[in-house]
């Protein structure tokens, strides 16, 4: 497909700050671009965006940036965002369109790839482009993340992918990197958007339930104090995350007895189990067929828990606790 060129990274701005996942993806796209000899172009969509926002993404690795900014852009209107990207892609004909992966971008990616009748690879945890055949190749989770599927695009351009970027590191910001920023005017009324957003808000708070919670945080004795436990519990509960403690943490009176996780206490069945301040897996898989994914924060990367985890981070609990709580509060702001 000769006429299709360049790699796009879609950057959707909720406020004037770029997401860390967007910056990481720009850096990742840079590596892909260098491998296949393509330019990386960032497409910025949001309110109150200007040349400087475009320049920032260039500093992280993009060659060009298109900035689409309007007071009437509404990130709650998925159809509108999707149609903006579709319109620009129709004009500029990118070869690949990449999104940082989340529920929202997956919905948009589905729509755009449908419009172009092209390949769509979602939730990629590793992505390559075949430089000769110009095809995306990816590893993605399958069967509730129990296995990996290795897939390859076979048809259509632009090929669309969403990438789970959390495990990739932030690229270095090169203040001297140059590139061009193109402001793009799009007449939103001509897109034929049928969706009307009537109301926006936050979900009602529901007290997290040990059995129903999708995410559970299990706290171990190394968290240090009762106060620390209460702090993380409060921050997490706002996001419907259930928080409990391991046997040892309960024995050391850091976690109250009623929050014990395991067959003698609260039975859990999360999609994701997060552990912090412990080197053992809490004894919770009692008569539960479902296998949770594990994210663990360990002090040493050779710990067995890190070996079996889907994701792990290496840090002393006291070094990361406050930052973690701050970030969890940000989600809900």
């Amino acid at each position, binding site marked *: 497909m000769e006429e299709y060129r360049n790699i796009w990274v879609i950057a959707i701005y909720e406020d004037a700050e770029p997401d860390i996942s967007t910056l990481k993806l720009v850096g990742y796209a840079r590596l892909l671009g260098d491998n296949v000899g393509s330019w990386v172009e960032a497409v910025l969509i949001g309110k109150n965006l200007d040349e400087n926002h475009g320049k920032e993404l260039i500093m992280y690795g993009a060659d060009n940036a298109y900035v689409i900014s309007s007071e009437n852009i509404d990130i709650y209107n998925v159809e509108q965002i999707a149609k903006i990207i579709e319109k620009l892609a129709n004009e500029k004909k990118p070869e690949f369109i990449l999104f940082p992966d989340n529920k929202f971008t997956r919905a948009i990616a589905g729509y755009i790839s449908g419009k172009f009748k092209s390949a769509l690879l979602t939730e990629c945890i590793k992505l390559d482009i075949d430089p000769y055949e110009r095809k995306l190749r990816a590893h993605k989770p399958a069967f509730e993340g129990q*296995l*990996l599927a290795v897939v390859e695009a076979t048809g259509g351009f632009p090929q669309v992918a969403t990438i*789970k970027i959390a495990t990739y590191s932030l690229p270095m910001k090169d203040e001297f990197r140059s590139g061009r920023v193109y402001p793009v005017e799009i007449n939103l009324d001509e897109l034929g958007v049928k*969706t009307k957003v009537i109301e926006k808000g936050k979900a009602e708070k529901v007290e997290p339930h040990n059995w129903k919670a999708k995410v559970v945080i299990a706290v171990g004795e190394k968290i240090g104090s009762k106060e620390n436990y209460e702090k993380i519990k409060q921050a997490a509960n706002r996001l419907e*995350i259930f928080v409990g403690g391991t046997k040892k943490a309960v024995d050391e009176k850091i976690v109250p007895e009623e929050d014990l996780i395991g067959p003698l206490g609260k039975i859990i069945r999360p999609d*994701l189990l997060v552990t912090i301040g412990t080197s053992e897996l809490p004894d919770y898989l009692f008569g539960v067929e479902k296998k949770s994914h594990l994210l663990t924060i360990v002090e040493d990367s050779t710990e067995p828990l890190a070996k079996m985890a889907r994701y792990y*981070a290496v*840090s002393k609990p006291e070094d990361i606790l406050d930052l973690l709580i701050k970030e969890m509060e940000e*989600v809900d702001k």
Partner: protein
Amino acid sequence: MKIAVAVKYTPNPYQVKIHVRTGTLLIEDVEFGVNPKDFYALEAALRLKEKTNAEVVAVTVGGEEADEALREALGMGVDRGVHLFDKALGFIESAVSAEILSEYVKKVEKFDLILTGMESSDLKGGVFSTRLAALLDYPFAVGARDIEVEDGSIIVVQDFFPKISKVKIPLPAVVSVSDRFGEPRYPNMWAISEAYKDDKVKKVPLEDLGLDRGIIEKYLKLRRYALYSDEEGVRRRLSGPKDEVAKSIVEVIKDYL
């Protein structure tokens, strides 16, 4: 009003094993059934049926056995089933099933509303609904917590947890239903067995829709399956300065909420 619910026949993901050397699936002893998240879409359709007297049709795309999924849906109270089938349709990705369903809607039967689950437990993409909407050129809503019909339109509460929004879209439309919609009802065993007796499932072969088996690998080719622990270059560590690590941890958590 006529509502279609797209259901997928999927294996129990926790029972699936692979042949490590060849990367193929071993699914002989695995239980199959309706994709768990599709039950929420069925529940949403049946609640709308109770309110508006709509006809609810369950539609599945798949091989010979996939009509089991329709019997289960019939057991929950769906009026009838449509099975878009071909023997070669095994595990198909959402782009393919969306295209087959869109051809059915274009050529055979129109619906006012098409409901889907959020994602399937096999190849998990969460993109079926919007891909279908694009092919049909219908408006869409994603992750519905609540759906209300209001003369020719629907009002949907969209769940992008912890944020929500209320949108109004004209019919016909495609809506994916969140697993926060409400507990799905249990299928009625008696109704399932009745569903086998009555001819409530219509089979539509691919040829009738003007499609052939080439569609299966039209967009994606599945090369092999692998175990996480065996794959090199699959990153698991969240690294960087502490504040970045904290951000990455919360990014991962958000994905599961």
